[in-house]
């Protein structure tokens, strides 16, 4: 069949996301389950409040971090499958022409679930390694009685094998839906494009206001953005992850340990870089023909890169702002609701210093990535692009 194990191993983004999600969820889940065994020993008063706060923190982190990363990984998986089908139209068309059913071809997409299995297994392994340190810092004030790490086989299975099976199933179902394209369209590698049509003419007898005519490069910038909402999402998501995780790590000095902060910084950077590189690489690869054509007609390299990549800059900074608001709201809720009865938790205020540092470092990172890809765009060979067609 067309899809091999090698194809599955190429899904680096899915591997990294599932690894991060399982690392965080496994640590908190294991901790909460071990904590639950202490419950009969927990007396009322300060210990009970601290215990409840820790349980609630675990639940919030698992729900927010796990849920957010799960949704993102599903979107990423669909993006990969759609991309795979688009770049292998001819092979898939030949299989269909030979008589393979959509379901039979889609069945081979299950291998994409393997990258999730590798990611979740690695994530669980990392979580096990980090657990001793994590348990220590969670109870460094020794408020709770001493307790040790236990291995819980059911959650381990649920966090590794179950997501892999779920993603394998999703891969088959989504590819089955995508393979419903007629054979000839696949064989001719017909491109279907997403275009947002403006309303034209009159509606209900009412004259629509005339649309303002934009310069060509602005129109191109806008249509590049509109052509792939998934890429817009990933660039926004990259900025969101960087902004929220880094600011949270810097602003929760008094709220959590250095261990937690370091973990958040690492996860933030890994997720942001993975999403950003994945999205920008797709933008560049998907627009090679456009870039080649612009250069054939005599547009400068600066104009080419600005029209293809420039449109994503506002998206990135909007993602950054949303990340800032999200982390502020989350910490505020944690402090005012979850830790409401814990005396030792200080009041939380927006950390302008952390915001400034993270914004500047994000701007530097983003502009460096853009510069790197602008250089890559300059190397697009007009002839090679033409020959590919």
């Amino acid at each position, binding site marked *: 069949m067309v899809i091999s194990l090698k194809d599955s191993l190429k899904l680096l983004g899915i591997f990294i996301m599932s690894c991060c999600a399982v690392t965080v969820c496994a640590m908190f889940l294991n901790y909460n389950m071990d904590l639950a065994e202490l419950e009969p020993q927990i007396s009322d008063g300060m210990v009970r409040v601290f215990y409840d706060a820790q349980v609630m923190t675990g639940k919030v982190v698992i729900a927010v971090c796990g849920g957010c990363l799960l949704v993102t990984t599903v979107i990423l998986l669909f993006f990969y499958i759609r991309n795979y089908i688009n770049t292998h139209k001819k092979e898939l068309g030949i299989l269909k022409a030979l008589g393979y059913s959509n379901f039979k071809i889609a069945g081979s997409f299950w291998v994409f679930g393997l990258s999730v299995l590798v990611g979740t297994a690695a994530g669980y392994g990392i979580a096990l390694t980090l657990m001793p340190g994590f348990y220590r810092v969670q109870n460094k004030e020794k408020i709770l009685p001493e307790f040790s790490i236990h291995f819980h086989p059911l959650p381990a299975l649920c966090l590794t094998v179950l997501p892999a099976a779920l993603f394998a199933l999703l891969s088959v179902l989504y590819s089955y839906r995508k393979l419903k394209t007629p054979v000839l369209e696949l064989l001719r590698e017909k491109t279907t494009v997403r275009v947002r049509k403006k309303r034209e003419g009159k509606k209900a007898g009412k004259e629509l206001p005339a649309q303002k005519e934009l310069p060509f490069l602005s129109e191109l910038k806008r*249509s590049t953005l509109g052509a792939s909402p998934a890429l817009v999402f990933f660039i926004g998501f990259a900025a969101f992850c960087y902004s929220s995780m880094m600011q949270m790590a810097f602003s929760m000095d008094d709220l959590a340990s250095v261990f937690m902060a370091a973990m958040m910084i690492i996860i933030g950077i890994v997720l942001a870089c993975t999403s950003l590189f994945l999205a920008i690489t797709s933008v560049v690869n998907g627009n090679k023909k456009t870039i080649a054509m612009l250069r054939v*007609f*005599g547009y400068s390299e600066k104009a080419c890169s600005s029209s293809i990549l420039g449109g994503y800059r506002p998206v990135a900074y909007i993602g950054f702002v949303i990340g800032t608001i999200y982390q502020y709201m989350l910490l505020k809720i944690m402090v005012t609701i979850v830790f409401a009865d814990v005396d030792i938790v200080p009041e939380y205020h927006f950390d302008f210093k952390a915001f400034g540092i993270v914004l500047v470092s994000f701007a530097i990172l983003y502009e460096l990535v853009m510069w790197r890809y602008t250089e890559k765009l300059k190397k697009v060979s007009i002839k090679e692009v033409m020959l590919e067609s």
Partner: protein
Amino acid sequence: MIRVNNITKSFGNEENKTEVLKGISLTVADEDFVVILGASGSGKSTLLNVMSGLEKPDTGEVLYDDKDITKLSDAGLTEFRKETVGFIFQQYYLLPHLNVDKNVKLGAELIGSRDYKKMLDAVGLGEKLHKYPHELSGGEQQRVSVARALAKKPKVLFLDEPTGALDEATGRMVLDYISSLQKEYHFTIVCVTHNLNIAEMAGTVIRMNSGKVIETYENKQRKTAYEIGW
């Protein structure tokens, strides 16, 4: 006037070298319709790429009114393409996410032209401004690419197998549009094709084989797109 002097071009490395152009020299007069004829692999498309500044030759020169474009930097070549040449390709290469109007604007805006819509009227697509490439037939897409190329008012129009992907009736229609627009706008046409019949429309025919020019002749009487065989 375009003068091509002793152009050579090879592809591949030292051990596996293929010489595609072997010392080509030719002249193209202003406002002429030149057809470069040749079988597949004769080097005609490479010659077109070199003449239009899309590719640099190994040796030789390509002079546009005494300006050698082989000596230009990448930025210089970009400027040259912007000011001097237009392209029409076999595969159209329209931008799929932009409608007809915006695709033609791609060419027009380079020279700050605002009257590009009349070029769409000239190729009979004035009513399809808001259609997207995938909503058009092959012939209509090629007519958009004609309008796009001419919207920047090029001095020289390069055509690479312009009817290669079209049926006879549509092919004739596209050639007729190009030919009548040349009379109106006075640009030079350099067209590479393997279709012998298109050569009957040309003022000058250059035949190529194995990277060399083997014959050059002028047509005493040029035929229209509807008079040639297919």
